[in-house]
């Protein structure tokens, strides 16, 4: 997997975890017996990831995140699961898809290919 794509996915997943902390889901987890107290540490991890991100990739990430509340979409059978639009044939037929950073031409989310 391309290092920048890995960082983008990590940032997306961490942002989702932080987002859940402000929603009812965290209360649900606390009721189940989980402690969710050390927010600062996960924010430091997020800052470390951002430092390693290419500025243009980070800019695109922020733009998409602000619009959709998520910045990564998985792809199955040539369909972006972020917007459920078909991806161009030339993109779908390419080899080593996760070895490069690609975005959906329709919604702009970064693509993670579940099948190569």
């Amino acid at each position, binding site marked *: 997997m391309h290092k920048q794509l890995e960082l983008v996915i990590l940032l997306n997943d961490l942002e989702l975890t932080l987002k859940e902390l402000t929603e009812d*889901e965290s209360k649900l987890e606390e009721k189940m017996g*989980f402690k969710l107290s050390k927010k600062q540490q996960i924010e430091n991890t997020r800052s470390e990831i951002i430092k390693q991100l290419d500025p243009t990739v980070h800019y695109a990430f922020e733009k998409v995140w602000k619009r959709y509340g998520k910045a990564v979409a998985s792809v199955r059978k040539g369909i972006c699961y972020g917007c459920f639009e078909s991806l161009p044939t030339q993109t779908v037929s390419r080899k080593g898809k996760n070895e490069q950073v690609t975005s959906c031409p329709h919604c702009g989310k970064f693509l993670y290919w579940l099948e190569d």
Partner: protein
Amino acid sequence: MPPPKPEVRISQFFSPESIQLSLRSRTKKHVLSELVSLLPVETASKSVILEILRGREELGSTGIGKGVAIPHCRSAVLPDLMLVFGRSKRGIDFGSVDSKPVHLFFLIASPPIEVFNMYHPVLGKIVEIVRDKKTRERLMEVEDGPAFIKLIGEVLA
């Protein structure tokens, strides 16, 4: 009309390959890695899942006490909700709420969005299973993967 939500059947998310009854790890760091290694996903995805799990642990340990930990996370690299069970007879220091070593590990890994949104119902069911002392004792005694799956099916019947 949306499709009816299916009943949560925990046993359907396990396969014999996702059950390890003799964990070799002795530390929190290593046991997370050992549990992730049992997920049926490619190696690159495993490293992302491991990082997210570690991030989740930074928020607070998922060791909920009584010898049980339920590390859980969501990641875009996962195609479906997946479960792993691991057991350590020796016990592992996992920074649990009661500071006791953990023997029973349930790992839950899920994509951010799933059709039936099973993540929290599955998490809740597992918490329910392990609250029962007798079930925890039986989990410590199961001899193989099929016996584990049978037991999970029984306690939820």
